[in-house]
């Protein structure tokens, strides 16, 4: 079978650098982007992948060729780039990052003038321009320069985050914090943030942006072994694990246990609603714990299909105060920016620990307790529909939601089956208050799906 490791589609362009993702493709995509957003300033940054420098130059070439002025911010976390785009007057931005994908991959993340992911209308238009190669072509007199500014975005981002927590009290507490930066784009900024801004006693590993990723890029319980060891060895009160572009956050408690990503989101939602009650938006696969917490504060929860852009669109529509996607470790706090931001999450968790005086394990234990099981099935064209029908027939009393695959709400739990946005997979998630019931549901469904 032909191996094809490139995907050009509504979510942008992503692929293995070398044979598939070439400088010409990146340049053409940037030309489409520059043509779409119009002449003006465009912010360009990247994560620490070895291919980042090469692709950054290809993208700069494409942007300049369409008459855009490039603000090159260099290696930056994706949320930092998004906050910066939103804060200054620009046409939009591009981040060269494949987020949590393996190191041989890279991709372009595209942002509009508010620093938000392109919505589906914008993505469609851009793709049409790309496919038609209908690019604006700047002449010598119309070509603008490249302005290099790595510092301003960091300053603005940290200022925005710190505005929402009690910095003086956190600093006074001198938290012992462990960090695994995966040698990613957040490596330097996270050290500065935790050590200098928040006065923590920091023990950091993998914070050299010139080195390759030391572990699998996605921060998960099975990839954070060294952070867990570090927390125990240094008797840290909390450990933070980032992904290469600093939007996702995983948390290790003081006992060296990696918290469930849904619980991390729940802790941050609790902290935010505590001080500023309002609407909450999460995706369909996020834990029902969020509903329980929102109920305590008399707040409403909206659910969307999986995907940051979907959550953000709904958050804007309902003026949500907090949102996110539990399963993949993303917290979205609009007062900083409509984007997944590990820095906001770190700040709120430390703030919560300081205010409550409780260790992070105890805060997590006091959350509404749910049990979850996740699974994946190979994707085949035409497979999802019949499976959805079979599931619905098997649970006739369930309330069905078909906005993203099928979600069945049972009186004692839920089941969600959907096609992945990024990989050729079907994803299955099951949740219940009881561990036995969660397992039972999972077994039933997997048997049914064959």
């Amino acid at each position: 079978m032909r191996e094809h490791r490139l995907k050009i589609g509504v979510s942008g362009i992503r692929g293995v650098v070398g044979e598939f993702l070439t400088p010409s493709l990146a340049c053409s995509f940037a030309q489409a982007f520059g043509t779409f957003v119009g002449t003006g300033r465009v912010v360009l940054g990247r994560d620490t992948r070895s291919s980042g420098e090469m692709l950054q130059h290809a993208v700069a070439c494409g942007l300049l060729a369409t008459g855009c002025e490039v603000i090159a911010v260099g290696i930056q976390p994706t949320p930092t780039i998004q906050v910066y785009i939103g804060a200054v007057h620009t046409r939009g931005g591009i981040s060269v990052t494949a987020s949590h994908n393996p190191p041989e991959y890279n991709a372009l993340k595209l942002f509009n003038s508010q620093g938000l992911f392109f919505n589906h209308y914008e993505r469609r238009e851009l793709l049409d321009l790309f496919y038609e190669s209908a690019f604006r072509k700047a002449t010598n007199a119309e070509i603008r320069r490249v302005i290099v500014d790595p510092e301003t975005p960091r300053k603005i981002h940290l200022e925005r985050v710190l505005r929402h927590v009690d910095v003086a009290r956190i600093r006074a507490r001198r938290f012992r914090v462990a960090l695994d930066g995966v040698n990613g784009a957040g490596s330097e900024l996270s050290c500065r943030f935790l050590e200098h801004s928040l006065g923590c006693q920091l023990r950091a590993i993998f914070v050299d942006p010139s080195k390759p990723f030391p572990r699998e890029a996605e921060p998960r319980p099975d990839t954070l072994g060294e952070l867990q060891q570090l927390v125990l060895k240094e008797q840290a009160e909390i450990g933070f694990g980032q992904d290469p572009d600093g939007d996702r956050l995983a948390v290790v408690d003081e006992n060296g246990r990696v918290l469930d990503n849904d619980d991390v989101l729940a802790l941050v939602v609790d902290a935010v609603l505590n001080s500023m009650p309002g609407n909450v938006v999460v995706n369909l696969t996020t834990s029902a714990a969020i509903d329980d917490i929102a109920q305590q504060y008399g707040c409403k929860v909206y659910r969307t299909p999986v995907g940051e852009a979907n959550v953000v669109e709904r958050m804007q529509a309902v003026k949500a105060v907090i949102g996110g996607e539990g399963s993949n470790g993303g917290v979205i706090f609009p007062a900083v920016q409509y984007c997944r931001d590990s820095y906001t999450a770190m700040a709120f968790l430390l703030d919560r620990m300081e205010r409550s005086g409780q260790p992070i394990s105890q805060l997590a234990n006091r959350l509404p307790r749910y049990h979850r099981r996740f699974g994946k099935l190979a994707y085949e064209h035409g497979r999802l529909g019949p499976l959805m029908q079979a599931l619905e027939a098997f649970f006739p009393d369930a309330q069905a939601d078909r906005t993203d695959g099928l979600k069945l709400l049972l009186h004692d739990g839920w089941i969600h089956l959907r096609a992945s946005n990024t990989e050729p997979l079907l994803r299955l998630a099951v949740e219940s208050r009881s561990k036995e019931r969660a397992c039972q549901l999972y077994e039933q469904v997997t048997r049914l799906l064959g």
Partner: protein
Amino acid sequence: MTTQRQLRISHVGLRGVVGMGLEAGHVLDFAAAFGTFLPPGPVVVGRDPRASGVMIREGVVASLLATGHDVVDLGVVSTPVIQHTIQRTEAVGGISIGASHNSAEWNALKFFGAQGTYLSTAEAGELLDIYHLHKFDFVDHERLGKLRFDDSALDAYIDELAEVFDMQAIAQYKVLVDCCNGTSSLILQRLKERYGLQLVLINAQIEGVNFAHEPVTNRKMVSLQLAPLMQPLGADAGFLFDIDSDRVALASEDGSAVSEELVLPMLADYLLPRGEGKLIITNLSTTALIEEVASWHGGRVVRVPVGRQAAMDALATFKANQIALAGEGTGAVMMPRFRFIYDGIASMLAILSLRHERQEPLSAIVARYPKYSILKEELPLVPQRMPQLMMELQRQYADGLADVRDGLRISWPERWFHVRVSQTEPVVRVICEQRGEPPVELMEALLDQVRSFA
């Protein structure tokens, strides 16, 4: 202002009007082809001050990194500095981004091999084949190149100039220079700082869009720009550079413009007695004065087709110590001491050295050369009719000695003409020269003939 679409892809490289023919995609593909063509190793990149150079640089860097080459970026520098840096370092090649004597809307890529010299015809052909095949050796993410900057290139280049020329002697003369907003300005400022040269620089501001005038190095531009200022300033010599400083034209102290054709004979006059090399490589369109000057010093002229490829190919067939210099009537001259790169700054310093050696004003030196009058014209091209035109001319002027290596050159004692198709623009060039007065009638007859085939 050129507003027409223009793109030329040839053995000379890539050249066109940016946004009107020359696009980012061409740049990326050509640089990827070059990265594929070169053996492993670092590649030197520099650019002239055109605004589009920033865009082109980004594309060149991306493709070179993607083909596994480290890139050494010299920023805005002259082409000779790029070539010198390639020679001086471990680099396996280089790219100069700049359109030299073309107007600001144009840009181009020039490619150099490991010696810093232009590619031979065979090498340039291979590069073109790779470009057209679109089969590039993109490496995987672990073998991608890295970019670094080098700001020491200019001083290292000047160090070498200072080894060859007596800067103290040259510093006695007041010299007016029109930099045409190009890279010569950076070098000349540094020469002033380091050796106290008395250089009066005009149009010295580095500029990306509005050049003070067309960056051509010919007698007409010298008459307009330099000649009127020579006497008021009391300058001993005046020089005019193109944007990337490989070509030069000059004015003498009495305010008269010296023909660009005289640069090569003057340098031959200076260099032939100084070294063992006695060969002068030049093209079929260059003044016959060079033969006469060569004969004074026991030198011999080897004529080759127009274009740097032909010059490079010819140079490769001789030992370096056999050669005195190589160059063309455009004011672009290469000296063996500088390992055969066109270098206007070196040419300027050599002419000032000649001035110092002779201890007489430039006008007097120029007056000693027998008078030759050259006429140069160009007409629009109809490619299909060119063969017929050439056959007709050859038949009509059968009494002369015909050379058909590059269009048609027919020579008689003390008179010759050359009709050829330009490699860089869609025109027919007609050049004729006569010892003594201008061959006006011959030129008119030739132009009539060419027009009748338009």
